[in-house]
């Protein structure tokens, strides 16, 4: 028996349709406390859709969401944040004409009693954050449009650091990044784990997520088809499995016995 409250996030039978497209077809997804989950799958598998439901941006058509044991039919962006869920979007969620510090605090400005901005405070915090995630020497006054793709991603991650949540969902955070920038993102995930937080790391690239994940969840065409503990598989195994799913839609027989979905009591 699985109890919902044992998990930080637990979804039951999530269904999401966009017109005729069924993006999620009954997804049971869970994230434990202080666990890093690698969520992998092909283009259009439904990864971002799942992430957005957890962040309160999409409303699921069916199913339920448990967060820390509390049951919800749907979340709103505000509710998700209150519950400690932070999503770093795959799309750019930046106001390009505005400075870095404003972007970090976009929608959650530090304000005084009458709603006036505490600009100095936010700039100082932004400077500290940029240092922490390794973007030293960039003045927080710089408009975001003057940053490279990797640095823009850095600003989005800086947001998640600032409002450090219990669960940080990173949607393809390493896409378009240079090797050193990828390394920086992985460092950040390590840091989260060390501080007792949880993380969902969404990617196409097994090699990016492998070093940091505790568990891998494979999603294909709106369904979770396999889950593996890190100790049971190598990156090569995972690649093999993903290729097989892409080619034949099935998992090679020899991996089925370590697929957590088949292990009694885990589902």
């Amino acid at each position: 028996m699985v109890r919902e409250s044992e998990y930080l996030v637990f979804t039951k039978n999530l269904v999401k349709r966009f017109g005729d497209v069924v993006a999620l077809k009954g997804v049971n997804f869970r994230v434990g406390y202080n666990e890093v989950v690698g969520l992998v799958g092909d283009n259009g598998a439904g990864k971002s859709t799942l992430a957005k439901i957890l962040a309160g941006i999409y409303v699921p058509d069916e199913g339920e969401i448990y967060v820390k044991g509390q049951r919800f039919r749907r979340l709103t962006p505000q509710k998700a944040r209150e519950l400690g869920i932070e999503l770093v979007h795959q799309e750019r969620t930046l106001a390009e004409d505005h400075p870095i510090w404003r972007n970090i605090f976009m929608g959650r400005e530090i304000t005084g009693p009458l709603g006036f901005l505490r600009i100095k405070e936010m700039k100082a915090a932004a400077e500290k954050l940029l240092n922490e995630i390794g973007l030293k020497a960039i003045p927080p006054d710089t408009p975001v449009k003057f940053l490279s793709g990797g640095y823009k991603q850095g600003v989005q991650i800086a947001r998640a650091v600032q409002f450090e949540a219990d669960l940080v969902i990173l949607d393809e955070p390493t896409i378009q990044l240079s090797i050193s920038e990828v390394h920086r993102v992985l460092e950040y995930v390590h840091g989260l784990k060390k501080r007792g937080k949880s993380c969902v790391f969404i990617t196409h690239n097994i090699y990016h997520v492998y070093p940091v994940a505790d568990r891998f969840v494979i999603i294909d065409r709106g369904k979770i088809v396999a889950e593996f503990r890190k100790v049971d598989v190598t990156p090569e195994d995972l690649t093999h499995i993903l290729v097989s799913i892409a080619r034949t839609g099935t998992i090679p027989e020899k991996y089925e016995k370590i697929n957590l979905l088949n292990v009694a009591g885990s589902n």
Partner: protein
Amino acid sequence: MVSESRGNIVFNVLTTLWTRYRLQTTVFTIFCGLWLIFYAISPSSFARPFTYTAILSVAPFTIIPALSLTYVIITGEMDLSFPSIMALGAWVLTVTWHAFGPTPLGLILALLAGLMAGFINGVLVTKCHIPSLIATIGTMFVWRGFVLIATGGFSISIGMWRGTPIYQALVGRFGGIPIQIVWAVVIAVILWIFLNLHKFGAHVYYTGDNRVAAQMLGINTDRVIITVFMIHGMLSAFAGVLVALEMGSFWPALGEIYLLESIAAVVVGGTPITGGTGTIFGTFIGGLILKWIETGILAVGVTGFWIKLVYGLVIIIALIAQVIIRKREIRRMKIIGA
């Protein structure tokens, strides 16, 4: 030695102004250039204080709606109905005064009418998903039609109350200075403060810069847009009241000439029509520039027919200057981290 360091300070201040506020400095320079040209052509009229009080007495009618229109345009929307809202506000004040005498009640009701008209615009745009350009063409005709029907097309005089305290407070003269320009400055300062130092202003910018992102980050962009339309409605009604009081009467076509003038003031002031950025200071100077041209052309003694031509040229020159500045800014600034 002393003069040199002082010179350095001036130089430093100027370079800082230029690097940080390139666009505004350009707008302001155009403004000063025009002034010099007019002064050179007609020193007699531009040395007289009367010329300036003449400009300052009419400039607020263009500037005040342009200031709040700047908010609307920054959110990425447009409002074409504000001249009709000006007329609506002026009409409400006029009929209230005729019923109850010249009291603040008329002003309060006029501002409420403006708020309501703005609210309707905002709801049409956000909840009914009608593009603002179209929605406000609709309400532009509705409110204009409304005042035409209500007055049967006739003007209504209110000049007989000139000299009453409220009249003086709104459009009187203080030491020769038209009070309405003080109102315009006060409104500009308040709008500047909220745009730059308040959370609401930040959300106005994000709504125009990246609306989807703003929504994903939990900003209620519909509420931002409705609020912005309401502020604009209220201040347009206020400007309409000032026009009627200055002229001493309400007439059904009141406000119509300010439509393109106010939009031009915003654009000349450096706010791109696509939204996301823009400044209150720029709009204020933009409005002054346009009025300066008008008065200047009349003062130098050519016919008023030249006004439109010069307007057009100045608008085009200002916009070309802005495009060049933005292009160069992007080229000069290296992409960091590439």
